């Protein structure tokens, strides 16, 4: 039976592909982290725009979140990967900054970030609405500036409400990175396919990659559990 599974293919150094897989895994995590952070920034701005912005801004944001949530990620990734970076370069050209050399990593982060931004806008908007209005009014009554209210009251107070949604989004971000394989970015899924194609050991490599993704999810779940307990301290257990 040992001829059936050739474990040495997973060795970390050269004849084995383990090192290459881990490298791809690292790329996946980098993109997920970057995209998630970008998505959060977009989400925070988007949520505030939707809640406190003018009618035009609100409608535009509505279009953004609707389109992203109604179109498959795969299609968005293709569109953003080709059109998005193109537009960005033209924009920078208009501003007189000259074309930027957009690396694959950067494009990946951008793409995942834009998709995540729409979802986190919705999550954060719901969470902000869940913060009792009295708390924000009280902060205003103390004479806090809007920025300070945001930093000291709204964001910390909404966090427990937003966490379940946000942790969900993190898990989605890690899995969405796999879609970048379709545009040829060397993240875990594409490296796996290359390794499988070069060695013909399809089953072994796809299972190995699956184990890596699963490990990432399980570790994330554990960390999320700790964070949620921390954020929910002082909350009466609602059940």
């Amino acid at each position: 039976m040992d001829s059936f599974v050739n474990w040495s293919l997973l060795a970390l150094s050269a004849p084995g592909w383990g090192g290459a897989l881990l490298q791809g895994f690292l790329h996946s995590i980098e993109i997920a982290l970057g995209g998630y952070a970008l998505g959060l920034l977009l989400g925070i701005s988007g949520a505030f725009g939707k809640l406190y912005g003018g009618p035009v801004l609100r409608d535009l944001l509505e279009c953004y979140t609707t389109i992203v949530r109604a179109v498959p990620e795969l299609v968005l990734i293709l569109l953003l990967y080709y059109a998005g970076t193109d537009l960005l370069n033209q924009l920078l050209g208009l501003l007189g900054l000259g074309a930027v050399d957009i690396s694959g990593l950067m494009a990946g982060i951008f793409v995942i970030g834009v998709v995540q931004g729409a979802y986190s806008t919705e999550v954060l908007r719901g969470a902000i609405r869940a913060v009792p209005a009295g708390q924000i009014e009280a902060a205003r009554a103390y004479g806090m500036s809007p920025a300070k209210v945001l930093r000291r009251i709204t964001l910390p107070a909404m966090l427990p409400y937003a966490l379940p949604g946000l942790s969900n989004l993190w898990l989605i971000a890690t899995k969405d990175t796999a879609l970048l394989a379709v545009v040829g970015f060397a993240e875990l899924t594409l490296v796996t396919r290359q390794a499988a194609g070069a060695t013909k050991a399809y089953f072994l490599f796809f299972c190995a990659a699956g184990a890596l993704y699963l490990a990432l999810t399980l570790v994330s779940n554990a960390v999320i559990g700790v964070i949620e307990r921390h954020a929910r301290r002082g909350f009466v257990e609602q059940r």
Partner: protein
Amino acid sequence: MSNETTHALAFSPQDLPKTESFFKPHRIVLIVLFVGLVLAIAIFMRWDWLPRYLPRLGNGILVSLAMLFSTSILGFLLAIPLGLVQVTGPWLLKGPARLFCTVIRGTPLLLQLWLLYYGLGSLFPQFPAIRQSFLWPYLREAWPYGVAALTISFAAYEGEVMRGAFAGVPQGELEAARAYGMRRWTMFRRIWLPRAVHRALPTLTGETVLQLKSTPLVATITVIDVYAVISKVRQETFLTYEPLILLALVYMCLTGLLVLAFRYFENRIPTRGA
């Protein structure tokens, strides 16, 4: 605010605009701008390829929809036992069911799909008997793998929902059924299952929309769905933006129709939610 029920915030009936209060002055300006944009896209971009591909596009849309409905229905049927055994089953069933849900939800669908198609495919030459079996005509095709992967994925996500739904049916109702002398099977069939399904129904819209958004992945294993047709357009015309814009539009329409259909059905089911 808890979103543990679905794996993402899908587009839902609440997101559809209401007709009253829709037309405001600024909206009219926006709509005019939007129409201008659409016209600009229609006039200044290349669309001469469209008539040639229309029949194939229609076919592709049908394949996508067939994938969506078959896998959603099969997946939901699978999700019921998955949810149930996680609530009451013996540990021998509970463990595997939980493991199944965790593994499927913890890995990307694209990887599962490739594992099924190319992974299994790479095993065929080692077992020549498979080619003699009655299953071979199906194993040769690509769509059974697509259906299998999408069904498994839907079952795992919806199985989590069903677990919550089964657990959430009030104990009192089950006790009342028992007090009426119902046997376990009758109680399950008459009380527990219908109540749990009712509780899970509101999540179905979201899950189905997410499933629709997963269907283009099957194009990577040679199933010719609408995404694959558009890919072909891209390759044959060397255009990038026009076909992709059309594709996004197609999916937006499909999502919109799906959500409208669900809203219609939800309004007809009197006991929505708990």
